[in-house]
């Protein structure tokens, strides 16, 4: 049995962590317990941050919002929408993946995972949108870094470090995020029936134009049933390109795409409503709705993607047929694999591939056995692990905050 503590504010969080520090008690940090992400960990204490919630300051004309870390992301999105603004990193709702229903969780959780949606390759990742924070470190001390302005080089940029640290360095209590105007208009240019290799060639081609594509994904044949939109034919592979901006500019650029790909016979255009829906479904990994299997995220240079797909995703001759899709104009693959023994073998082979190709794997979802004994990140570089361990201890000297969540023993 673990004790769950639900502090109301930073003072109480700080006091609690300080007490745990003094008495050497490890703490698991949760908000709505919405994300069983990372390695599974055992702690005598649970810190539930959901009560430390609320919008502190929203300045639409200064393009930032400051919120307490326990604030539900959905509330933040609503407030931004009322001013025609949004979060530029296009947050990912992992609720579908884990439980088959929407649940963005808290902003603190979202920041701690540093996951970014389809716009990533154009607009940067979540960490590029975190302007500042306050947090409590593993000694119970309240620390801060950054601010509310976009240009800031005053001291180390700790925001970068805390984004994506999975609560292992400090407990975020307040975050300031950059916000951006919502694009006035958007449409999606869809091509049907392309092979993964052809899709990658399309991405390469459009990324060498000035068309400012803000979404580029490819869904293979084994992973299209769930894409149900009026104007979308989901019987063949789907390669989609999103264009956003002022209406006249979007239409001009869609026209340019039509010209560039005039050879491609089968294509369609999703108008704004369906376009928005399409990218939301894609961002939220709805194709892996409540998946019982292992789901991995592979970040890789686009030139390695075709190779990776033929080795690990689909290959008729080798009989490989795993569900996957390609995002970020070829820079990202989400892949589902079985969770029995042969898949562990595949994972090991994938790790080897990644080590050689400036790529890496993150396990988005796995059963408890794998989360206990397997890896979460594919790192194999011992020097980086040593440094990561020192960095962890510099924030959390007794290793009491989510110990072992990222790497075993760190």
């Amino acid at each position, binding site marked *: 049995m673990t004790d769950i503590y639900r502090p109301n504010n930073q003072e109480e969080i700080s006091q609690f962590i*300080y007490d745990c520090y003094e008495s050497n008690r490890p703490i698991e940090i949760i908000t709505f317990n919405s994300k069983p992400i990372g390695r599974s960990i055992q702690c005598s204490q649970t810190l539930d941050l959901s009560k430390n919630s609320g919008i502190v300051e929203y300045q639409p004309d*200064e393009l930032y919002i400051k919120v307490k870390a326990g604030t539900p992301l959905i509330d933040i999105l609503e407030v931004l929408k009322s001013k*025609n603004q949004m979060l530029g990193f296009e947050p990912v709702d992992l609720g579908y993946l884990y439980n088959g229903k929407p649940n963005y969780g808290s902003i603190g959780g979202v920041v701690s995972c540093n996951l*970014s949606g389809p716009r*990533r390759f154009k607009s940067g990742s979540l*960490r*590029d949108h975190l302007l500042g924070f306050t947090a409590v470190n593993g000694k119970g*001390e*309240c*620390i801060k*870094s950054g*601010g509310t*302005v*976009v*240009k*800031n*080089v*005053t*001291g*180390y*940029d*700790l*925001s*970068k*470090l805390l*984004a*994506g*640290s999975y609560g292992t360095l400090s407990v975020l209590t307040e975050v300031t995020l950059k916000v*951006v*105007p*919502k694009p006035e208009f958007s449409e999606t240019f869809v091509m049907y029936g392309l092979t993964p290799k052809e899709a990658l060639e399309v991405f390469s081609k459009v*990324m*060498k*134009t*000035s068309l*400012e594509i803000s979404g580029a994904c490819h869904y293979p044949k084994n992973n299209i049933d769930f894409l149900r939109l009026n104007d979308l034919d989901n019987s063949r592979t789907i390669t989609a390109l999103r264009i956003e901006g*002022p209406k*006249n*500019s979007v239409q*001009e*650029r869609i026209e340019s795409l039509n010209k560039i790909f005039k050879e491609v016979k089968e294509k369609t255009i999703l108008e704004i409503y369906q376009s928005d829906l399409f990218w939301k479904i894609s961002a939220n990994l709805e194709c892996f709705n409540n998946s019982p299997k292992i789901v991995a995220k592979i*970040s890789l*240079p*686009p*030139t390695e993607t075709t190779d990776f797909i033929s080795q690990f995703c689909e290959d008729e001759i080798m009989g490989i047929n795993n569900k996957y899709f390609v995002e970020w104009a070829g*820079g990202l693959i989400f892949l589902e694999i079985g969770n029995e023994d042969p898949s562990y073998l595949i994972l090991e082979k994938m790790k080897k591939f990644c080590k050689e190709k*400036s790529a*890496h794997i993150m396990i988005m979802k796995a059963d408890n056995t794998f989360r206990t004994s397997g890896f979460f*990140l594919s*790192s194999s*570089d011992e*020097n980086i692990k040593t*440094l*990561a361990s*020192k*960095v*962890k201890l*510099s*924030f959390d000297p007794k290793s009491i905050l989510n110990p072992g969540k*990222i790497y075993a023993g760190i």
Partner: protein
Amino acid sequence: MSLVMPKPDEATLLKSSSIINGLKKISKHVLSEEEERAVYETDGLSIHRQKPIAVVLPETTKEVSLILKYCYDNNVKVVPRGAGTGLSGSALPLEDSVLVVLGKFNKILEIDFENRCVVTQPGVTNLSITGAVQHEGFYYAPDPSSQMACSIGGNISTNAGGVHSLKYGVTTNNVLGVEMVLIDGTIIRLGGKNLDAEGYDLLGVVTGSEGLLGVITEITVKILKKPQSVRAVLIGFDTNDDAGNCVADIISAGIIPAGMEIMDKPLIIATDNFAKAGYPRDVEILLIVELDGTESEVNTLIEKVLEIAKKNKASYNRASESDEERLRFWKGRKAAFTALGAISPDYICMDGSIPRKKLGTVLNEITRLSKKYELAVANCFHAGDGNLHPLIMFDSNNKKELKKAEFFGADILKYCVKVGGVLTGEHGVGIEKRELMCEMFNNDDIQQQLSLKKAFDEKSLLNPGKVFPILHRCAEEGRVHVHKGKTRFPDLPSF
């Protein structure tokens, strides 16, 4: 000017010649003669000068690793240096240090259009990266005004910004990976050609760390395709407040210009004289707004911007009709520092960041301070992202003026923090703003940063005396977190 630096280590100074010999066994390029070292005694903040024990110009990562390991084993301080254009003194040598200059790392290693990136050595200048890819219509986005001279390694270490950062981000948003040598000689790689690096974002903290965490020996940066169409408009105003409001209104209207810059009258005149940019000379404040995208998009946006300008009582406007004209608009702004150098014997350049809508207020305060200190000031701003560069003019032959200029500068920065901004937007803390860190951070904040530094550099040998205060304790009584009657750091030394 007296500047307090960490006390030189007597033992190190005594064994200088053995250190020089040790280094010569590792590298062919060790400079130890007085006049050779003098070349490197200062960076862009030239009011401070100090020669190091020796200057080394390594040629390979292996050499850097051996040099650092040698220094680590012998407890010798190391200061990394790129092109030495930094404006905060962060590349200033220490008397008992070895200066590692990356000037010979001057090759672009790989141009990879397929993965939209360039792999380069750190000594390559910022502008040469764009130079190497522009034949295919690509460019490297961050464009500091010093881009012809500053090194990309220095850009990473200072997280340099430019006039297009508003839309395309600063260095940290455009770097994908580095190879770096830690002080004990360990070579590590952070990130690479893929977008999301794994684990803790160490690349993110290394960017902007002013040479305190490691020596960068290779860099992978993102390159972007040039926009279809680009145009700029010049807009003139009679008052600071009108210009400030116009900037805020443009952003509020949901427009994110590629660049948005402000200059005040003294700079308008100075830069126009210098660069023949064609600026209006009868306005008090000049705003340059650049818009990019498809042609029709740019034209629509220009109309919107001009409308907003009119509402804010603009007294002048002109939109560029050709690319030559647009580049001429920028030529003046980009030469701001040089142009001012031509009219004032000396100036110091400040670098605070503030919320955009405080632009008018802060400009007015700077005018007030200028009268108080009886020193002239000229202002340029990266207005879109609230980053201001007041240039305080003085004559260094007059000792009193330098002192006054420094107080004036500090007052401006404190005011920036007071209105919700920060001490430095892009030039870094270095030695210049070191003691002002307490304006923004308390003791716990600073201690956390120092512990992180120790994770990379336990012996504090890399670039000591920079960024963190030496004279002050940031812990003011009221701000120290006290638990159950005991302060957290009862035996903490003052720093």
